[in-house]
């Protein structure tokens, strides 16, 4: 998967799972989603932390130990223990770190080579089973996935922003906001239909002026 895909999925996962629009945890989640690829020295995380990535790449195959439930569990254990020892770190940051990391490696299940989710068992978990339907790095399918994630994240961000504002002022609820969103979508669709109709009319007028139309 491309770095940008990891960043987007990490950020969107944190936004949705931690129910936050705060840019700090979202940024932490996005960066954490790059961490599983530390098992390769040429990855962004590997280049930033070469003293960790070089020994890892000498020992493990790509997408094995760092792309596993074991790694996620270890990170959770360490990070929450750290938070317990030093409660000055906001809990949402710890959540973001763990969610981002998990999303980062889980996303790679959809690639052709899969991940060793149950490391050290050695089986490579993939989704779907047919390799021809899985995503190749940098393929068109990956860009479509990015568009899909951005669309979901954007919509969710708007919902949360409004919910937050409503909560602050002690009025409004989700239903009202969702209804507003639907009406906004309907408005967009109506505008597009109108634009399309006008465009057709303009084309017809052009054809009439040029004398190539049937009428």
């Amino acid at each position, binding site marked *: 998967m491309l770095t940008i895909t990891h960043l987007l999925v990490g950020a969107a996962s944190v936004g949705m799972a931690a129910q936050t629009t705060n840019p700090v945890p979202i940024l932490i989640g996005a960066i954490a989603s790059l961490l599983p690829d530390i*098992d*390769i*020295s*040429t990855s962004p995380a*590997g280049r930033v932390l070469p003293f960790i990535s*070089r020994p890892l*790449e*000498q*020992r*493990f*195959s*790509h*997408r*094995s130990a760092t792309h596993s439930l074991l790694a996620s569990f270890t990170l959770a254990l360490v990070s929450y223990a750290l938070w317990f020892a030093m409660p000055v770190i906001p809990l949402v940051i710890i959540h973001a770190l763990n969610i981002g990391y998990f999303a980062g490696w889980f996303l790679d*299940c959809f*690639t*052709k*080579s*899969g991940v060793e*989710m*149950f490391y050290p068992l*050695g*089986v*490579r*978990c*993939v*989704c*779907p*089973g*047919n*390799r*021809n*339907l*899985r995503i*190749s*790095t940098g393929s068109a399918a990956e860009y479509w996935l990015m568009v899909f994630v951005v669309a979901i994240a954007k919509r969710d961000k708007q919902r949360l922003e409004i*919910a937050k504002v409503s909560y602050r002022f002690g009025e409004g*609820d*989700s*239903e009202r906001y*969702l209804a507003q969103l639907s009406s906004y979508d309907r408005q967009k669709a109506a505008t597009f239909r109108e634009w399309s109709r006008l465009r057709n009319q303009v084309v017809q007028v052009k054809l009439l002026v040029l004398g190539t139309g049937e009428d």
Partner: protein
Amino acid sequence: MGKTYLVRQVWERLLSDGVTCQYFEPATPKTLLMAIADMAGVDSKNLEGRSKTVEVLKQELIQWFSVNRAVLIFDDAHYLEVKFRLWLKKLKDVGVPMLLAATNPPRTDLFIYVPRIELKPLAEYQIRDLMEKEAIALGSGLKPNQIAKLQSRAGGNPMLAKRAIEEGFLGIQNEAGDHGRYFDITPLLLLVGIVFICYRFIGLGTGNQSLYILAGIGGAIFLGVARLSYYLPKESRRISN
């Protein structure tokens, strides 16, 4: 260590110990019988100088093996024809020691009668060691990060590990491996859908309408995708992209 490497080592060791033995790769029954006859010194031609029929040759070989002792080693035995395997079972009944190397052999005929050793996939460090040696032998100049990526295609199989290095050396881009250690987690989507449905009931019970709506949408999406996944085309067993 793969099965071919193992049986070849056994064969060489037996030969060096002076034991009569022969290593066979899959071929037609006639070719294999002729090779066994050559090893045993049984004449494959009759008095008229014509080749003996398969049945005659089989009978004569059984007679020879009932008196003499020789070890037969078959690599890729799962490719041998069933009739030939059944004849090998007769040889086994006579007391002929044989070593069969096979990938996913059926639980029938000859394979069910012979004691079985199952070769486990090699550990990661063994595969890495093998790949590094192969990379040096080829003079490929592959870096550790490239070998780490290629290693994911080996799946603990030394033959695939060597092939991955060759592909890396040739610059062939191929993300997926041919090993059988892939596990399809698509059914987990169903579990995610079930979790959403559980949240939907929590939303219903606690009167939280937004949770009810969102969990309902999430459940519908994931259960729909899980259902859809049943209709996805299955992977072909043939090599294709």
